[in-house]
């Protein structure tokens, strides 16, 4: 017996699905939590980077400013900016500065009086910087200033200028020293060792959002790239500091960034310092982690299914044993199964099962004993029947035979009454012989084997009717036999039914000159009912219960001959066919005998 939907398969699938579901949920939680953690940690680092970068920038600018202020103080207005001392000092400063690319001395009107290092154009070329806003601020505020990004008139490259005013004895504005910053060098301020982390970079924009310095890509400086659209820059220029995840529209990539404003002059818009990292890069190892977790999940799911299969197999093996045992019991082998030692409910089941098998075995033994007893008693009964048929008849033969001998040989010495008595003796012994024969016949009906086949009851009834007519041709009886009635049953046994019922009708219609005997069938709730109906003497329904018992007679022997075995025979045969037999009658009107036969055979 093969199960179509094995428990092993179903439970394994279920376990795999559950494992996969649980793992997916765990994975999702892990990933979300992991990403948050990673981002938070990354942001911490970025904020620190931004602070450091801002500090370095601030320091550099302050250094540049104080250098310019020192140079301005040491420049005697009388001697003029072009004095050899001032020139030497400026040259020395320029030589040691890591940040300044040019130094210029500007006249109070804003013309360059000296540019160091000297260009090929010579000193004769004067540049007018008086229009620049930072120069105006320098003149007005009498302190050092830092310019926004602009294109240097000296080398045509973007630069910013740190300038300090020079004042005369009278406190008059006498000009200014200005240092032009090498933005390339500013860019690499506080830069990490080359190649260590190309994805992280700090940058600086002026108050308009133009890049002043960029650790990662100095080209942005050269091209005066506008970073004002970068959300982190926007925030910083608005004076805020913090961290943000955003799309950098310049680079078209997602970034994690820390930003802060850099106040370069009181009451002026700040610059922006941003330290950012490409999000994909920062979270890259997280994706790797996710892949690892997914892989682990799949592995675990597979392992869990495998384990489930194995453990279920192991778990169900005892069930297999039980199934096999049940099969054996079903086949009649009641060997009590070896109890399972699983120590769980299965063991209980197996024990209960063993108990059941044991009780079944005992029941079976009892049944076998009873069958043996029954067979023995059947054999005894057969032997008894045999004896009856053989031995009981022998004395009857003697009684009859010797009565006859007396009548024949000693008739002369016997008075008429003696001859009459001897006649009764013969009659009685012959009747008893008939009774014995009928009784044996009745017992044989129950003993003989049963062979069911399709039986044409109509034809059988016709045959019985013909036999009755042939036996008593003097009578005019009308038979109405419905044609085409057939049933499943043993033809030899069913013959007894029809023969007895029709003979009865024949017998009990003897006094009716217009006798009519009918055989037919009709449908009913319990199936087909067959009936034999006559218009004979009938009987009182009060005695209907005794009709089918052997040797019960409702009429005097002198009235209607018979042993009273016929209807008992009918009932026995009908019962062997799983049906029942009953009668309806009215005295002097007639009787109808009904019977059914089990139909699914």
């Amino acid at each position, binding site marked *: 017996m093969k199960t179509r939907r094995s428990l092993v398969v179903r439970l394994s699938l279920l376990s795999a699905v559950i494992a996969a579901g649980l793992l997916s949920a765990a994975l999702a939680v892990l990933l979300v939590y992991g990403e948050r953690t990673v981002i938070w940690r990354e942001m911490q680092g970025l904020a620190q980077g931004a602070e450091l970068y801002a500090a370095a920038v601030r320091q550099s600018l302050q250094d540049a400013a104080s250098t310019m202020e020192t140079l301005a103080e040491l420049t005697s207005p009388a001697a003029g900016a072009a004095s050899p001392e001032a020139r030497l000092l400026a040259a020395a400063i320029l030589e040691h500065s890591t940040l300044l690319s040019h130094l210029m001395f500007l006249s109070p009107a804003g013309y360059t009086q000296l540019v160091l290092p000297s260009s090929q154009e010579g000193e004769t070329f004067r540049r007018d910087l008086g229009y620049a806003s930072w120069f105006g601020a320098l003149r007005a505020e009498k302190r050092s200033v830092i310019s926004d990004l602009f294109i240097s008139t000296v080398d045509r490259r973007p630069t910013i200028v740190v300038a300090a005013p020079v004042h005369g004895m009278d406190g008059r504005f006498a000009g200014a020293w200005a240092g032009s910053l090498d933005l390339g060098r500013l860019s690499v301020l506080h830069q990490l060792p080359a190649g260590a982390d190309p994805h992280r970079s700090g940058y600086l924009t002026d108050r308009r959002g133009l890049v002043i310095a960029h650790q990662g890509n100095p080209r942005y400086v050269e091209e005066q790239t506008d970073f004002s659209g970068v959300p982190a820059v926007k925030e910083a220029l608005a004076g805020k500091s913090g961290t943000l995840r955003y799309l950098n529209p310049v680079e078209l990539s997602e970034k994690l960034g820390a930003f802060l404003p850099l106040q370069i002059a009181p009451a002026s818009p700040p610059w922006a310092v941003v330290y950012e990292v490409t999000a994909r890069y920062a979270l890259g190892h997280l994706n790797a982690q996710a892949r690892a977790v997914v892989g682990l999940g799949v592995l675990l799911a597979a392992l869990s299914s495998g384990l489930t299969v194995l453990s279920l197999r192991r778990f169900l093996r005892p069930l297999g044993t039980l199934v096999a045992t049940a099969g054996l019991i079903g086949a009649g082998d009641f060997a009590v199964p070896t109890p399972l030692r699983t120590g769980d409910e299965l063991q209980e089941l197996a024990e209960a099962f063993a108990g059941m098998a044991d009780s079944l075995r005992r029941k079976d033994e009892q049944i076998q004993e009873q069958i043996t007893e029954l067979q023995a008693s059947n054999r005894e009964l057969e032997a008894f029947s045999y004896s009856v048929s*053989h031995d009981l008849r*022998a004395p009857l033969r003697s009684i009859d035979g010797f009565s006859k001998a007396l009548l024949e040989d000693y008739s002369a010495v016997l008075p008429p009454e003696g001859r009459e008595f001897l006649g009764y003796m013969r009659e009685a012994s*012959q009747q008893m012989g008939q009774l014995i024969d009928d009784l044996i016949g009745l017992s044989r009906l129950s003993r003989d084997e049963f062979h069911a086949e399709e039986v044409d009851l109509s034809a059988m009834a016709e045959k019985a009717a013909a036999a009755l007519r042939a036996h008593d041709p003097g009578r005019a009886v009308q038979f109405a036999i419905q044609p085409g009635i057939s049933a499943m049953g043993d033809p030899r046994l069913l013959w007894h039914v029809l023969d007895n019922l029709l003979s009865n009708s024949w017998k009990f219609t003897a006094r009716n000159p217009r006798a009519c005997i009918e055989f037919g069938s009709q449908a009913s709730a319990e199936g087909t009912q067959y009936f034999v109906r006559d218009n004979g003497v009938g009987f009182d329904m009060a005695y209907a219960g005794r009709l089918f018992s052997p040797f019960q007679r409702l009429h005097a022997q002198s009235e209607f001959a018979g042993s009273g075995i016929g209807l008992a025979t009918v009932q026995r045969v009908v019962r062997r066919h799983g049906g029942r037999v009953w009668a309806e009658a009215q005295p002097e009107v007639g009787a109808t005998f009904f019977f059914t036969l089990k139909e699914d055979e």
Partner: protein
Amino acid sequence: MKNGYVLLVEDNPHDVKLTERAFRLSHILNELKVAKDGVEALELLEKEEHLPQIVLLDLKLPRLDGLEVLRKIRGQERTRLLPVIILTSSREEQDLIESYRLGANSYIRKPVDFDKFVDAVREMGLYWLVLNEPPPVA
């Protein structure tokens, strides 16, 4: 009528008397030798110089029953072809089948009614002792 004898194997003396009477009433003149059981019947068959013309064999007999007697008769060369008629009260199917299987030549049931018994014996005698050609004597 031929004058061979008839062997009646019958344990019931009444039946023996009734059979003898039926023979007489049927005018069967053949000698009737009687064996009261199976063993006696076989001894008689062995002892007698001539075999009976027919054997009338009851089935239910003391010591050796009728079917055993029939088996032994058919098993011996001398009696192999001897006509054996089962004459019994039994009408059990198994007895009929077994008798014919063992080679009985005929099976007659003794009726209770003596008139019918006489009829049966008369017809049997007419057939087996007059009409029937017995097998050649060995």
